[in-house]
């Protein structure tokens, strides 16, 4: 091999290595740092509330000059409010990251803030910050797509009051499956948004009954939940050492068999002794 070709090889190697890294670092969200927009309305983000008439819910954007913006949803009455953006993603693993904080939460009313992705059935999310404090907390959620899909990314506030703030929101691709301990979601083709009208899809799903694939996914989740709880309790049980003797339960059972037999016989006697 000639010397120029020898020099080219490392360069090609570097290019090969660099491209996926750049690609992996690409934020698929438009205006994920909330820097663009007019006033309280960030570009590329839409809003929705559960209680249509709620005037007590406000959507705002805080941005200091030269810095990234901050998305805020606040509510003083019971409502569910969300900021959303739909992104089209190729099959593969993705990571949602961001920093969020909550303020003014009444823990008794179970106000929740969720950041993640929603499908027609639920919101896969992480809960931001530490409840009851206003500290910023970083969150991370891994999502796997099996087909090219329109995915709805959401920042949601649900409850009776308080506010949620979100900044540095990113959806980036990851090279492989994340570690087992990572919070991850597997979205099949049904879960992701494949039609422009999700309401139609929702009603269709209900009229036809739950789709098999969706059921399987939910059941897997349920089973994992059952197994997890069983395992936790199993450990709990075994932290409490059993100290009794087996013969005590044998004797107890024998006694409990004898007592009703005595009662049966006592009631059957025709006259008192």
């Amino acid at each position, binding site marked *: 091999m000639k010397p120029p070709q020898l020099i080219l090889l490392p360069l090609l190697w570097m290019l090969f290595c660099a491209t996926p890294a750049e690609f992996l670092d690409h934020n698929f969200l438009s205006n994920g740092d909330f820097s663009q927009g007019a006033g309280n309305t960030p570009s590329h983000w839409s809003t929705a509330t559960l209680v249509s008439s709620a005037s007590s819910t406000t959507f705002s954007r805080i941005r200091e000059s030269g810095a990234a913006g901050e998305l805020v949803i606040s509510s003083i009455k019971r409502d569910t409010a969300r900021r959303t953006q*739909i992104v089209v993603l190729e099959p593969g693993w993705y990571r949602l990251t961001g920093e969020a904080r909550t303020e003014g939460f009444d823990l008794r009313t179970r106000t929740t803030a969720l950041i993640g992705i929603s499908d027609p059935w639920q919101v896969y999310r992480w809960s931001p910050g530490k409840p009851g404090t206003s500290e910023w907390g970083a969150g991370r959620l891994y999502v796997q797509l099996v087909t090219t899909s329109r995915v709805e990314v959401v920042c949601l506030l649900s409850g009776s009051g308080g506010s949620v703030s979100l900044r540095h929101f990113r959806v980036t691709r990851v090279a492989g499956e994340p570690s087992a301990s990572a919070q991850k979601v597997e979205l099949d083709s049904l879960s992701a948004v494949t039609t422009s009208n999700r309401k139609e899809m*929702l009603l269709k799903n209900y009229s036809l009954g739950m789709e098999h694939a969706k059921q399987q996914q939910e059941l897997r989740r349920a089973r994992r*939940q059952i197994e997890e709880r069983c395992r936790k309790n199993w450990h709990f049980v075994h932290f409490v050492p059993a*100290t009794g*003797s087996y013969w005590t*339960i044998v004797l107890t059972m024998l006694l409990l068999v*004898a007592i009703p037999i005595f009662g049966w016989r006592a*009631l059957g006697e025709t006259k008192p*002794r």
Partner: protein
Amino acid sequence: MRSMSQKRPTVTERAEPDVVSRLTRFCSVFHRFKILQPDASTLHGWTSGDTFIVCGLLLIASATRFWRLNHPIVIAFDETYTTAQAYCFLNGLPYRVSHPALEALLVALSMSIFGINNSWSWRLPNAIIGTALVGVTYLLGRRLFGSRVAATMAALFVVLDGLFLVDSRLALWEIPYLTFAAWSYLMLFRFAQTGDTRSRRIALAWMGLALGLGLGCKLLIPAIALVLTLAFVALFILQDPTRMSDRATGESPEAYRSAAFARQLVGVIALVGGLSALVYEAVFLPNYWFGGWRGVTDQLAYYAAEFRFQNSLVTKPHHWASPWWSWPLMLRAMLYWNETAFVAGTTSIQTSSIRALGNPVIWWGVLAAVPLMAVQAVSRKDLARGFVVLGYLSYLAMWIPVPRYKFLYYYMPALYFGFLALAAELDECWRGTAHVWEEAALLMSLAPAIILGLGTRLGMGVILALATSYVVLRRWDKRSAGILVCFSFLLAVLALFVYFFPIWTGIPLSPERLQARMWLHGAGLANWN
């Protein structure tokens, strides 16, 4: 002068007449109460009409209990405990939770047959038991009140109440213990209304079995059923202690009555108490078998730990908690499961939810029916009615001294007695034997639901129309007025069942429709949201 042939009475014999006379004086008030005898009943044996009614009720009940039973296919509310416990048992692991394990054993049985990967399988036992409760209620109502109308209405209330429906469709603890308690009440009155010694013993054995199964389902609450049934068995025996025995000759009646009472009481406690304790203990055997416990001391340690745990809940607040006095008013509903689906690019949202919320017409009707039944129990000296009232009060009163946070579904066993009371009161209306003030009280109990459902203006109009129709009919024909009350009630119950059905079964609703069903949405306790 005492003859030589007369035997000198022993200390025991001398004491016996005193005991009996004291007991007789103490219970003289109950002696005047009457038990419904088979002969006195208006019903003469089981007819094809009964079979037809029971089959119809079971058909409706199974349709409501089994329809889309697998929805939601995720674990809802406290199913997390019952399913995990069942899963542990299937894998040969012990599992300790606050409540005894019968419900989990039933779930495990179902899972072992139909598989774990099916939400339908872990809900099947409760759906079956919840359907059976309807049949048991018909039998109980028929036996208590001697009326097919009362029995049918009581069973219908079980079918059409939201809380009973919801808990029959999820793998929770309430429905099994309620069904076993209802079975024990049925056996209690079978015992009371049967003269044959063997039949009475069999009734008691069934009662012990049912009570044991009930105790094996839920911590402590079913103990009220045990105390209540044993107290009433004692009362029935006291009314006629010699009923199960042939009177021996040569003994004084007082001595004989006293000995018969004591022997039968001991026998009943041994048979019913012993059998229920045996069944209750058997429920815990998986914990011994799988090595979680080794002896009875471990079980005692579990009670001690549970006592500490329950005490630790005293100071903790809970979002869905409600005080006992608020339950009859149904001020605080509970959310068992909720899922909101957003529609992309629009503001349309649909929410599916399962809420522990009763049928308001039945619940608020019970509030009127129980006091009416209490008055009737005293004025008519009717022990069956007294049992219903005492049952209702006992299950409610047991929560007064309990300091921990409490939930609406704790009211279910009291409510069950309320169903019986309401059914009996409506039966009185149907027969035309109810007083004006009784019918008026029942009609008035409809008013809150009418106003909250239809709005103040329209609601007041409907109430006025109903009241006018009642007054006109009452002047014309007493029975027709009673039938109007009955029909109005049943129509309202049915309408609200249809109206609230989506939020009992997780059918998706738009936010507007969901909010319209949240009749109470105050900032404080009175909140169904």
